């Protein structure tokens, strides 16, 4: 079967857009072919800086003929219906339609529509220009004299020529005849811009790819990447060094060349005094070159590898020399920045943060740093960190944002802070926190373990979350501009992977009051009473809050209103944590319904305990005892909810032992009491495995009860008592989880 070759030859396509464009082209053309009933055997798309190319092979020469019967109105139906039918089917007059008899509904018209299949090449001539005109470039432009006309072609950069051929391997293929904005499809391409610029006639994909290669164009981006990587590795290896591999850079560089030529250059050794990361950022971001290290030390050496787009007639001498000049100037700037930065102590930079707004509604960076300091000091003893070190670390952690190097390379934030902190003789833990308090940045990132870093990392993230919650900037759907999901996941990972015991609700509500100054006016006139008395686990927190209240406002009542509001917000924030935890546990293979079962017990803000409870519950439910107890509990719940509905009442309260008629009832009551106290004690000791084992003892009694006892007894008082007993099963299991939330 014949093949299609399509090439769209243009001025330089941005590297970052090429891969998706190739994919879009393949998808759009093949989707359209399939929609036209043309099933193909295979398709592959390619991109270089100057062209998108597509080959679709094994496409049928023609569409198959279509025969369709379409049912019309009944014979003698209204004229409008008949006219509509004629129009829809293309029949000239109603006499051309067949009449079909239906014994029930009477006679009606049937149109026989025969649609002969068209030649594929004609279909292509119709669909290709539409695809080109509607191509989804992220940004496209108009150009040249035709740009005055409305509806002129828009492309990523000026489009110069189109190849579209269709035909069998054994024959001269035909050109698919169409034109887009004055560009006629043909069979001519062009080679490398400098090494082989002249026109090349092509027939089909095989000779197209081969001729391009002869004309110094490697069509396949994957092949270009392999060439660059292999050559770069070889160049480094030949000098006894090792290439620092960089997939992102490789992808980009492969999109900047049609004929990759790797060349090695060097820079003055004096620049090796700059931190490796700064050298790499300089050379990578600005010059799109790879760096090279010494495999023995792991440190960078004074070499770099560039990828030229040409086999220069002088072997690349001028190109290397030119790149060396630019890199020298760039490194000279970087060295100057680095050395300038070292002259100013980190704390001396902080004053400037007074002028820098973090967020319009959340105040300046300086205010934010103060909040993080206070919270880090609060968290420090809970995570085993020295309070003074945590405060110092939080004080300095953001200072590098104002350094020259970070201004130039924002991705080095934190890391530079660590270097500068070390240089000014800060404690190792304090210095490390500059870098590590940003971590973990995502599910794969390292979680810090040093308690000082942990305290500052938690404080930073909780401040962000509480702050954006306070101003109602929560993530919605796919929108999460402040990366709050990532921050919440960071908190979860910091806590669970370091086995920390923290009461997130309390910390959050404590912290939320530091935002109260900004939002206090909201509560004027909205005076309400405080709800339940505060019962805090964290020692001294209630005092701290009272003190805070006096700082913020003289009016205890305004404070109370604010406090209520922040309680509300914090509960909402906590359920956000619960959702993130669910996602996190689900990703690790745990069942999300178990998280719900634990959370719905209420009052759960200790993530570590939640995780442990979920783990123990999961294991328990994998056992026969667990499964049967779950089934029994569910059965009890189902019966209860039916009877509760029928009687319009609940069956709370202790059952009356005097009403037990059967041995199974007594046994169950006994088991429930025993399990309640055993499981309760185990939960107190946070031994969830033991709590589950205790639960298991409930199972034989529950099974026997359902086996032998008729719940809806004829005597009303016995029935009520039995329902109360069922309610006790439900209550007993709530010591470990809300079984009704568990699926299955």
């Amino acid at each position, binding site marked *: 079967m014949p093949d299609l070759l399509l090439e769209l030859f243009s001025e*330089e396509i941005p590297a970052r857009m090429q891969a998706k464009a190739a994919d879009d082209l393949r998808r759009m053309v093949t989707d359209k072919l399939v929609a036209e009933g043309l099933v193909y055997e295979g398709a592959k798309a390619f991109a270089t800086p100057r062209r998108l190319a597509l080959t679709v092979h094994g496409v049928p020469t023609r569409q198959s003929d279509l025969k369709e019967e379409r049912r019309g109105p009944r014979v003698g139906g209204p004229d409008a219906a008949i006219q509509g039918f004629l129009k829809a089917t293309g029949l000239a007059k109603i006499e051309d339609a067949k009449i079909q008899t239906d014994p029930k509904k009477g006679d009606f018209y049937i149109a026989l529509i025969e649609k002969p299949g068209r030649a594929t090449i004609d279909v292509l001539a119709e669909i290709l220009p539409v695809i080109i005109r509607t191509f989804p470039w992220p940004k496209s432009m108009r150009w040249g*004299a035709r740009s*005055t006309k409305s509806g002129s072609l828009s492309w990523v*950069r000026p489009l110069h020529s189109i190849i579209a051929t269709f035909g069998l391997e054994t024959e001269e293929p035909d050109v698919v005849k169409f034109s887009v904005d004055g560009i006629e499809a043909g069979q001519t391409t062009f080679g490398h811009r400098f090494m082989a610029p002249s026109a090349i006639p092509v027939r089909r994909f095989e000779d197209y790819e081969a001729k391009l290669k002869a004309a110094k164009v490697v069509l396949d981006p994957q092949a270009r990447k392999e060439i660059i990587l292999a050559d770069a590795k070889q160049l480094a290896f030949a000098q006894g060094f090792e290439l620092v591999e960089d997939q992102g850079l490789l992808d980009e560089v492969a999109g900047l060349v049609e004929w990759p030529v790797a060349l090695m250059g060097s820079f003055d050794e004096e620049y090796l005094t700059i931190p490796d990361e700064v050298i790499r950022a300089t050379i990578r971001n600005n010059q799109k070159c790879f760096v090279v290290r010494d495999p023995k030390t792991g440190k960078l050496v004074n070499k770099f590898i560039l990828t030229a787009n040409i086999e220069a*007639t002088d072997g690349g001498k*001028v190109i290397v020399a*030119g*790149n060396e*000049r630019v890199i020298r*100037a760039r490194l000279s700037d970087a060295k100057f920045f680095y050395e300038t930065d070292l002259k100013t102590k980190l704390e001396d930079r902080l004053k400037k943060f007074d002028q820098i707004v973090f967020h319009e509604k959340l105040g300046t960076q300086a205010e934010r740093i103060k909040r993080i300091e206070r919270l880090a000091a609060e968290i420090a003893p809970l995570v085993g960190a020295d309070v003074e070190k945590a405060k110092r670390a939080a004080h300095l952690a953001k200072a590098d944002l104002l350094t020259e190097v970070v201004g130039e390379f924002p991705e080095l934030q934190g890391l530079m802070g660590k270097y500068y902190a070390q240089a000014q003789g800060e404690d190792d833990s304090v210095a490390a926190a500059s870098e590590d308090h940003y971590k973990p940045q995502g599910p794969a990132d390292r979680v810090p373990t040093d308690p000082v870093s942990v305290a500052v990392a938690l404080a930073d993230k909780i401040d962000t979350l509480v702050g954006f919650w306070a101003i109602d900037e929560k993530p919605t759907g796919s929108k999460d501009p402040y990366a709050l999901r990532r921050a919440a996941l960071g908190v979860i990972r910091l806590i669970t992977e370091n086995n920390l015991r923290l009461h997130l609700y309390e910390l959050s509500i404590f912290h939320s009051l530091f935002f109260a100054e900004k939002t206090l006016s909201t509560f004027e006139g909205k005076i309400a009473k405080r709800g339940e008395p505060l019962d805090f686990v964290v020692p001294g927190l209630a005092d701290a809050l009272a003190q805070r209240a006096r700082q913020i406002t003289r009016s205890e009542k305004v404070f109370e209103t604010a406090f209520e509001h922040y309680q509300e917000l914090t509960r909402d924030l906590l359920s956000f944590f619960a959702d993130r935890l669910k996602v996190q546990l689900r990703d690790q293979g745990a069942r999300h319904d178990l998280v719900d079962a634990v959370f719905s017990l209420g009052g759960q803000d200790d993530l570590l305990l939640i995780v442990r409870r979920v783990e123990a519950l999961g294991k328990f439910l994998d056992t026969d005892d667990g499964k049967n107890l779950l089934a029994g509990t569910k059965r009890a719940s189902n019966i209860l909810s039916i009877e509760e509905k029928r009687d319009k009442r609940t069956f709370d309260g202790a059952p009356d032992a005097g009403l037990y008629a059967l041995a199974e009832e007594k046994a169950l009551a006994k088991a429930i009491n025993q399990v309640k106290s055993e499981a309760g004690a185990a939960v107190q000791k946070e031994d969830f495995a033991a709590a589950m084992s205790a639960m298991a003892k409930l199972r034989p009694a529950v099974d026997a009860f359902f086996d032998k006892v008729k719940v809806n007894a004829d005597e009303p008082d016995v029935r009520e008592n039995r329902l109360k007993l069922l309610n006790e099963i439900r209550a007993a299991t709530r010591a470990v989880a809300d079984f009704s939330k568990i699926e299955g």
Partner: protein
Amino acid sequence: MIPCPYADTVPRTLKPPFARPILPMDALPAHMRPERSFQGFILALQRFWAEQGCVILQPYDMEMGAGTFHPATTLRALGPKRWNAAYVQPSRRPKDGRYGENPNRLQHYYQFQVIMKPSPPNLQDLYLKSLAAIGIDSGVHDIRFVEDDWESPTLGAWGLGWECWCDGMEVSQFTYFQQVAGVECAPVSGELTYGLERLAMYVQGVDRVYDLNFNGRDGADKVTYGDVFLQAEQEYSRHNFEHTDTAMLFEQFKMAEDACKKYLAAGWKEGGNQKEHLMALPAYDQCIKASHVFNLLDARGVISVTERQSYIMRVRELAKACGEAWVHTEAGRAV
């Protein structure tokens, strides 16, 4: 005017490969060669673009941050009429002054600007030929077009194009204007901007801008870029960072803004029917002025981050109003 004794030897049409310089270099006296002298370098570019049919303009007689601000680009990019021009424009970036101590940064430097409307289909080839004309041989250099989308918030303008790299160095900006002064470009112009000092440094092989040979002579006759501009860099850096009268500048900004609006309002022929405008150019001068005054204030650090946005917006409003007026003038309107 410098007479060009070689005009007859200039080939009328060029065929690829473009490695051959447009002017036979041997025919030029040594001191005029683009790789020897800064002025020879500029002249080579001017000759090249003159050969492509561009009018060679002289710099606009006002202070501006980039060659794009020249009315020959900003205003002439609008409207349907053909327009091909090239010129050198001194560009002032008060913030970039370094008291003459930085080898690359200047508060005053030269841009070479080319605008062709509509953008010709072979604009990339023309650009590469122009590089050949200043001694950059595409057979030994690695020339690349790297994505760079251009946007000027003050001019209400944007376009797509590239930074042009030569051996890893950005040497030009290449832009297809899509919108200027808030008006859709129809047709689209192609704009090229060469950073002259940087390119000349590369061609001459010097690392410090002040070491550029300006006149191509040797020994006692040699004049360097430093001889011409070092003192100016020092003086203007003092001026820009330390001594500009900010109260006066705030006042000047307001005055230029008011004047621009006043001239625009007065320029509509037959009162307010908005059909024909008679004073777009003088009004636009005031927009250029406001923009430069803003740059001076910015260099003095007296404009806060939030104010900055609002000043940029005020200049953009002027630019847009001027663009709107321009498309109702003789040169800017549809035929």
